[in-house]
């Protein structure tokens, strides 16, 4: 292909990627080293607000931003180095906790609490998603042709449902007097409060994620199963390989690139878990790194947002994903190099 033709083909997509991925990323990267503040002054303000009968007037000193001649708040931007990272990581408190020997109090600090849960969440759901996806794929592959279509459709349903709706429907099954909780309460004759226990919420969040993502793994593996070399399988049968041995030595090695692909996607997605926190209102017990970034970015009633810390937290999340992906990427790279020779 001529270079010009190639450029015309990839040009638009490169432009979009620069505009929507590279540029925001660079901007967040820079903002994580900057702090932009309004110039503020303290002024005496008399405020009159309604009571039910009369008005209450109070005079108090308030901090208000200074406006420039166009009526916009004046701001100053400073380079602060790693200050925002230090504020997110709260290393001084971690140090104090280690010095006093109370390890558990590290997990009360927002970032570390979020990191602990996000890692557990990601690493526990990973094998379950792959295992369940593979199991469904094998089951469908061995099912009679006439019912295969229906089974595939039903298996895909959880993946089609909007994430937050899926999370909410599981929440409604368990929270308060949800159907499942009510049923369990009847059977065990006790009072169960699912949402009062951190571990129960954690389990529900993981259950939801596996339920939601397993169909994706299933579709990929099912496609892979269609290309398993039938000759190899037949010779394995002639050699007396059991069903499990055929799976272990023929099917899984054949699917390995796909398993790595699903693992990569899942690690990236699960590390950015967010809708579980919203759907299950788990903030009191469990938070994720992505939720922490969102919480910092969300303005409060007075309009303040912690953009610098949010940027730092976003960069840390990205670094975390890269670290998680390194082993898998190295393996893919090795295989790639191996096959080239």
């Amino acid at each position, binding site marked *: 292909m001529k270079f010009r033709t190639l450029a015309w083909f990839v040009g638009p997509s490169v432009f979009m990627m620069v505009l929507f991925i590279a540029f925001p990323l660079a901007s967040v990267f820079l903002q994580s080293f900057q702090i932009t*503040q309004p110039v503020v002054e303290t002024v005496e303000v008399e405020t009159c*607000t309604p009571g039910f009968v009369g008005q*209450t007037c109070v005079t108090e000193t308030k901090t208000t931003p200074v406006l420039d001649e166009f009526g916009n708040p004046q701001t100053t931007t400073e380079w602060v180095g790693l200050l925002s990272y230090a504020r997110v990581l709260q290393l001084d408190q971690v140090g104090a906790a280690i010095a006093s020997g109370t390890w558990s109090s590290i997990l009360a600090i*927002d970032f570390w609490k979020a990191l602990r849960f996000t890692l557990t969440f990601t690493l526990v759901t990973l094998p379950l998603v792959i295992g369940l996806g593979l199991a469904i794929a094998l089951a469908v592959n061995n099912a009679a042709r006439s019912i295969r279509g229906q089974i595939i459709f039903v298996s895909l349903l959880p993946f089609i449902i909007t994430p937050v709706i899926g999370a909410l429907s599981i929440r409604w099954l368990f929270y308060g007097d949800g159907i499942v909780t009510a049923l369990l309460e009847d059977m065990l004759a006790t009072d169960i409060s699912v949402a009062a226990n951190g571990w129960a919420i954690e389990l529900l969040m993981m259950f939801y994620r596996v339920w939601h993502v397993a169909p994706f793994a299933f579709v990929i593996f099912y496609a892979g199963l269609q290309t398993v070399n039938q000759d190899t399988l037949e010779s394995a049968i002639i050699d007396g390989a059991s069903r499990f041995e055929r799976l272990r030595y023929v099917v899984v090695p054949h699917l390995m690139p796909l398993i790595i692909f699903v693992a990569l996607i899942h690690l990236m997605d699960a590390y950015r878990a967010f809708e579980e926190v919203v759907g299950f209102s788990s903030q009191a017990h469990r938070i994720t790194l992505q939720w922490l970034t969102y919480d910092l970015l969300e303005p409060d*009633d007075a309009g303040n947002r912690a953009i610098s810390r949010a940027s730092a937290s976003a960069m840390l999340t990205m670094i975390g994903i890269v670290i998680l992906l390194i082993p898998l990427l190295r393996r893919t790279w090795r295989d790639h190099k191996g096959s080239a020779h």
Partner: protein
Amino acid sequence: MKLKTLLMAGAVSLLATAGAQADCAFENEVTVKSLSAGFEAWKAVTDAMAECGNVEAELDQEFRTKQPAAFAANPSLYHIGGVSNGTVTPLLNEGTIRPLDDLIAAHGQNLAPNQLIKINGETMAVAMMVNTQHLMYREDIFDDLGLEVPSTWDGVLEAAAAIKEAGVVDYPLGATMKSGWNLAQDFNNMFLGFGGQFTGADSMPTVNTEAGMKALDMMMRMTEYMDPEYLVSDSTYVQQQFQQGKIAMANLWASRGAAMDDEAESQVVGKVNAAAAPLAMEGGAPATTLWWDGIVIAKNISDEEAEAAFRVAMEGLDTEMVTANNDDAIWLISGYEPNRLAQGAIATASADPAPQSYPSTSQMGLMHTALGNELPAFFTGERDAAATLEAIEEAYITAAKEAGLIE
């Protein structure tokens, strides 16, 4: 819900432009857009505004995220903003709303003096209703058990113990203690009730004090009588607990009162009554805060648009609207007849000493977030009270430094 409201508002405004201005005193020719919260009172007001024609009302519970940026645009994306004393702060700070004195002189003859929100003598907003969290209780249960309506939180706990013993409801007490904004607001109420102040000189936090310890202690004692899932319980959850007869008492928003008597939803119609918010300590103010909701007019619009917007808003805030929607809020507008459930809010607001208005300051915004994020650890048992208050102050200081409020 939002889409439906929008469609309805659009349909109403279309109908109105078709010449059905029967209920509006004038025919509005200028397009007027409003952005407000989505609760019943705003629905009533924006529907009344739409009768004038050319009104596009957006009712959105996420309005507070959108409002500051939308009003800072030039021209502003909305003409009328629905605000409360919590959410007016960024608009005031950034100077994106205009003084209303001239417009009030020209078109605001029907406004009562106590509706005008004045900042340094200039009217910046017009209030339409007040709101507060106060004690709602099941009058029938209190009568059956021969209990007095408590006026202090210690009294509430005693009553809760008696109700628990009688076993007439699932949980004696409900509370809006969902982690985040709600939990922080419940702490605010109790903290102010114990005479606390959030920040001192130089904007430094003063939460790690005796009042803070007492507030946490009281809240922890309350949780003994509550649904153990209280950390996911917001206003709607408590309202439903009441409606389904699961709780007997709660410190709940006055604006939720009408729902108790809504026959379509409630199993306890006529059985819930309201009283003043209980005192946290003798001689103190009721442990709650006073809120107002009202309208502001954007600054970055032409004077003609501002005038049209204000006239439309006045139509929305008139006596006719109040008469039609009397029970939807504690209105400040003339023609309002307080009903049974409004008495609690009125008693709260007129108590002596009276509870504070929720402070509309940047510091309070940061403090509210810090409280909402750090308090849950106390209730899940991860931190004790002292460590929690310390963590709140640290979180606040970090945020205030980043926002440039303290050095």
